[in-house]
């Protein structure tokens, strides 16, 4: 899962994959703006076949939060 998440983050945030670490969060990443965030969530949903509520979607603002939410849905 981690490699795919990293790839999707890189594409959606338009950043090189090497810069995507597990400590990445929206707070300290200038590219992680609101539109790219929505792009990112849509891409994650499509890639992993999951879906997030509108509430939850706003909280997926770090690598960790995304990995946890996917793990909760049984993605490994």
């Amino acid at each position, binding site marked *: 899962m981690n490699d795919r998440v990293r790839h999707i983050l*890189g594409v*959606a945030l338009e950043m*090189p994959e090497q810069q995507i670490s597990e400590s990445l969060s929206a707070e300290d990443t200038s590219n992680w703006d609101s*539109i790219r965030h929505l792009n990112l969530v*849509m891409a994650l949903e499509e890639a992993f076949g999951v879906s*997030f509520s*509108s509430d939850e*979607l706003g909280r997926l603002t770090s690598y960790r939060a995304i990995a946890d939410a996917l793990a909760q849905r049984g993605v490994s």
Partner: protein
Amino acid sequence: MLETTRDRERTAHLPRLGWALLSNVTQEPLRPFLKQLCYDIGFDADVWVGGFDTALQDAAAPESATADVVVVSLRLQALAPALVDRFVALTAAEVQAETQRALEYVSAVCSEVRKRSKALILVHGFETPVHAALGVLDYRSASGQANTIRRLNLDLAERVSRDGTTFVIDLDAIRARLLGDRFIDPRTWHIGRIPYTRAAMRAIAAEYLRVVRAAKGRNRKCLVVDADGTLWGGIVGDDGPDGVRIGRTFPGSAFHEFQQALLALRDRGILLALCSKNDRAAVDAVFETRAADMPLRLGHFAALRVNWTDKAQNIREIASELNIGLDSLVFVDDNPHETALVSELLPAVHTILLPDDPVGYRDVIESCDLFDTLTFSDEDRQRSDMYAAERRRAEEASSMSVDDYLRGLEMEVVVERVDDRTIGRVAQLTQKTNQFNLTTRRYTESEIRGFVESAERDVLSVRVRDRLGDSGIVGVAMVCHDADRSTIDTFLMSCRVLGRGVEDSLLAACLLASRRRGGREAIGEFVPTARNGRVADFYPSRGFATAEPGRFRLALAGAPLAFPPHFKSVVVDGEQVIS
């Protein structure tokens, strides 16, 4: 998907295709889909997204003026929210005022773009409600919400279609084609004003590309079909002509519908060709004895290859017989070995493997989006019949000398200035012609209209008719005059009339036009492409001297105006040159 830095380097060498997206919703997420689809057809998409809900101002921005494609997507939800959210509460007058305002705004954005640019304009139609305002009652009233928005779409189509280079993107049709996939995502709509799901955006971008492909001459012209298992169920060699499944009732009805879909393509001017591993007599027998059960006739096919040779070889021959490139062909077969062989040996041919269940065949043809054209003329309607006449010409030609044959055709050639009547066909020829095309410059109707109105240019088309049929407009030339020099910057001929001297008549007419304006020399331009090698020597073989690579010069004084003598008549600009 093309989004990373490495991808940007990959596309850098491709020709740029500029896009401007003008909208009242967030269109940013469409960008990667557009970039990918453009890359697939050999373009580097440069996508500019206008501001949020500033379409009218953006229409006047330099990015819109320099774009090749301008997309105007104004969602009714944001443009006239009362029509969507509170329709029942509106009076008839308010409905009228709101719809009129929406229509005027979209029209204003389009005309603002058109003032500065000849770009393709793609206008989104309005989404009709999935749940109409007044429930079941809504649909029976012409003034209900659903029918009001449908009428608004009709008015929009009527309004924008006055411009030959503006096209409507029908969101309702795209939504219906998505079947199970969701079209609208309420979460991204509420959070970021992104209305559409990824599946929807992919489909919307693909719809844009249909128009672009047609404008850039990337669409297909001919469909090659297999016979056994494709046109009918079963194998004629085993089941006999009476045993194959074709007719009005199941299971033959699936093949009957498939044949109808092929005929509908033929009506649009797409050529049909038959390529079957069979004895010719067996296939003929099906067409004869089952004629009452089949919409298709052998005469509907522009080329036939019924033999035991491999299909790649047969398809090569079909392309050369019809004088079109392999990249103009689509090949359909029910046998995965055949489609695999053809896509392996002839990668330029687009191959389609039919689904296991024949009831799905029809949809394969109808959903194939590779046959779009931007105009539809009488030439398209009659194209297949013209090819049938061509087959007869070829049969006659094989039995006599070329000269006698040409004289016997009693050809009448008319060269005339392009006008409103012919501009659609002329634009189409510049967009579709690949082989006999000296410069391969693609033009839209509005660009050509600009040339026609320009005082320095002559824009000429040539029509041909003979004893066996009318071929319509088959060639275009554009000559740009500057002092005493005339440059032929566009010269193209439809391949179906080559070798009969029509190209020489058109060239002579260009020289005549130049001489009448006091020209002293003519320059012929040649821009090589992967597909126009056969005309590299066109100008030298007509007495032009090489001035530099791609430019050929002819002094007009004393140059003979060589109208070939075998024509019954040649008319240039309304004047009889040969009769």
